[in-house]
C-alpha cells in the first residue's frame, strides 16, 4: 500500500509532465469558472442601462441585492427598470483580461505619464534581487561553509546568527534608509538582511552533513588544512549547496516587495501600487504573475543546469 505513495521514483516521464501541467491548469480552471459562468459567485451587477434610478450610471458595479431593490422600487413606481449583467468585483478580472494586460504590458508603452512600464519595472526589480543575493552569497556561502566545517567557527558565529535571523528584515527599513539613502541601497540591504542569516545557517548545516568517512579518507590520503576545504568539503557539498542557493534565491524574491516599498517605491512594486491606484487590477495580476513566472522559470533553468553540472548527484534522479 505504501508503494502507492512512494512510487514517484518509477513514475514515467509523460505522466509526470502531465501532472505538472495539470497542477497549473486546475487553479486556472477554477478562475475561469468563477469568471465566465454567470451563476458562480458574481456578487455584483454591471449596469448597462440605469433606467429610472437616478444614481445609477452606465458601467457602474452595484451589489446584487441593491440592484434587486432598485428594480423592485422602479417597478413599484412604474419607472424604467435598470438593466445589467451579473459581474465580479473589480478586483477579480477574468483570465482573458489579465492575458491582454500581460501582453499589453510588454508590447505597448504605458498610457499614464507617471507610471513606469512593466518591463522597466521588472528589470529594476531583477537588478535589486541580483545585487542583494550576490552580496548575501559572497558573505554567507564562505561563512556557512567555515561554520559547518570548523566547530570553533560554528560555535563563534552561529548563536548570534541564530538570534539575528529572528529579527524581521523589514524592521531595518528605516535604519537602512538613514544609512544608505532612499534609492536602491536600502532595498538591497533589506534583501541581504533577509537572506544572509538563513543562508549561513542552512549552508553550515549542509556542510556538516558531508560524510565523515569522505573527509577521513581524504586525510589518510594526505589532505590537510585549506586543501581539505577546497578539494574535499566544497566539491563534496556542491550539489547540495547549489540546491540551497536555489531555495534561498526564492527566499530573496519574497523580500522584494517589502524591500521596494522602502525609501522611494521602485520596481515592480511601484508598478503594482500605481496600477492598483488606477484600479487597473488586470495589470496588477499580470505583474504579480510575471514575478511568479520569472521566479519559477529561473528555478527550472537552474535545476536543469544543476543536472548538467553535477552528473554524479544521485538525489536528482529521484525528482
Amino acid at each position: 500500500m505504501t508503494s502507492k505513495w512512494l512510487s514517484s521514483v518509477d513514475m514515467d516521464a509523460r505522466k509526470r509532465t502531465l501532472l505538472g501541467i495539470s497542477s497549473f491548469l486546475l487553479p486556472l480552471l477554477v478562475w475561469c469558472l468563477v469568471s465566465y459562468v454567470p451563476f458562480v459567485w458574481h456578487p455584483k451587477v454591471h449596469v448597462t442601462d440605469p433606467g429610472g434610478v437616478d444614481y445609477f450610471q452606465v458601467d457602474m458595479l452595484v451589489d446584487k441585492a441593491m440592484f434587486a431593490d432598485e428594480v423592485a422600487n422602479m417597478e413599484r413606481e412604474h419607472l424604467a427598470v435598470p438593466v445589467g449583467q451579473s459581474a465580479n468585483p473589480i478586483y477579480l478580472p477574468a483570465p482573458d483580461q489579465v492575458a491582454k494586460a500581460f501582453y499589453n504590458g510588454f508590447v505597448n508603452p504605458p498610457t499614464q505619464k507617471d507610471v513606469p512600464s512593466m518591463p522597466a519595472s521588472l528589470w529594476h526589480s531583477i537588478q535589486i534581487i541580483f545585487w542583494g543575493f550576490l552580496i548575501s552569497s559572497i558573505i554567507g556561502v564562505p561563512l556557512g561553509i567555515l561554520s559547518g566545517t570548523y566547530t570553533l567557527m560554528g560555535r563563534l558565529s552561529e548563536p548570534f546568527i541564530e538570534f539575528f535571523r529572528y529579527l524581521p528584515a523589514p524592521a531595518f527599513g528605516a535604519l537602512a534608509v538613514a544609512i544608505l539613502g532612499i534609492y536602491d541601497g536600502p532595498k538591497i540591504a533589506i534583501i541581504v538582511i533577509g537572506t544572509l542569516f538563513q543562508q549561513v545557517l542552512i549552508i553550515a548545516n549542509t556542510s556538516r552533513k558531508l560524510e565523515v568517512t569522505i573527509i577521513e579518507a581524504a586525510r589518510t590520503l594526505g589532505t590537510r588544512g585549506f586543501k581539505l576545504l577546497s578539494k574535499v568539503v566544497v566539491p563534496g557539498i556542491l550539489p547540495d549547496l547549489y540546491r540551497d542557493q536555489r531555495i534561498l534565491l526564492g527566499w530573496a524574491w519574497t523580500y522584494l516587495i517589502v524591500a521596494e516599498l522602502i525609501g522611494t517605491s521602485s520596481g515592480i512594486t511601484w508598478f503594482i501600487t500605481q496600477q492598483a491606484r488606477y484600479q487597473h487590477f488586470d495589470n496588477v495580476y499580470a505583474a504579480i504573475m510575471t514575478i511568479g513566472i520569472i521566479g519559477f522559470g529561473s528555478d527550472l533553468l537552474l535545476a536543469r543546469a544543476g543536472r548538467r553540472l553535477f552528473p554524479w548527484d544521485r538525489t536528482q534522479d529521484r525528482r
Partner: protein
Amino acid sequence: MNPKNLPSYLDQSEAVKARFDRINQRETILEVRDLGKRFRSPQGEVEALRGIDFSVRRREFVCVIGPSGCGKSTLIRILAGLESHTSGDVLLDGKPVTGPGQDRGMVFQGYSLFPWLTVKKNVMFGPQLNGRGRDEAERDALLWLDLVGLDKFADAYPHQLSGGMRQRVAIARALVNQPRILLMDEPFGALDAQTRSKMQSHLIDIWKNIDVTVLFITHDLDEAIYLADRILVLKAHPGEVQEVIEVPVPRPRSPGQFNTPEFLATKARLEELIHPAPEPEPEDEQAVQPHLIRMTNVTDNVE
C-alpha cells in the same frame, strides 16, 4: 570433523615454520608499544584500549579480530592517525605517528570514495595532492586500476559501481600512494558472501605481487584465518590483546583449505577466545522485552 581429532592450532608444518622464521627476520614496519586509549563519555571515563603491544613485519598480513566493543576500529583509527591515543607509542619505521599521512593507506568499511570524481580521478587524488603532474598521476592511476581490474570503468562515477567494485577502487586509491602499510577496517563487511570471497582472493593476489604490508580488521573468523599470517585477538572492556595466533594454514591459500584440520583447529581456538561461555547481555539489550500477542487465527499455525 570431531573437535577431539583436531591437531593443536599451535602445531606448524615445516613449511609454515620456515615461513614464520623468514617473516621474523624481516624488518619491523609497524610497532605498537603499550598503547592505551581512554575517553570521557556521558557514562564516565571509558578505557577503550589498554596495553596493546604488537609489531608487524614487512609484507606480513596481520588480521585483528575481536568481539564488538573490543576497540578494533579505534585501534586502526589510531594507527591511521585519525584518532589520538592517551598512552604508549605507535611507531612506523621507528618514527612516531602523529597524524594521518600518505605512508599509511586506509580502506574503510563504508562508502569512502569521492562521489564527485570519476574512478580514475579518485585514484589520481593522492598523487596529485603529492605534487605529481597530471599526466604522471593519470598514468599511475590507470596502472593501479588495471591491477584491480577496473581499467574499463576509469571514467565511471562511483555511484555507477557495485559495492565490490567500489572497494576495489578504494584499494587502488590507497595503494597508488605506495604506503608502507595498508590499513583495512572491515573493508568487505558490507559485501555479499560471494563478492566477499572474490575480494578476499583478489586481495591476496594484490598482496603477493606488491611490496605492501597489510593490517586487516574483521569480525569474520574464516576471513581472518584465510587471509592472515598472524591474527591479533582482542578482548573487550577494556580492549586488550588476548592472544596472537600464528596461522598454521600453509600458503598459497585457496578457498579449498576451509575444511583442512589446521584451518578448523585455528577456527576452534578463535571461537573459544571470542565466544566464551555466554556472557550476560548488555543492559540496553536486556531492556528490550518483546511482548508477543497472538494476532492471527489460533488454528493458523506456521510451525
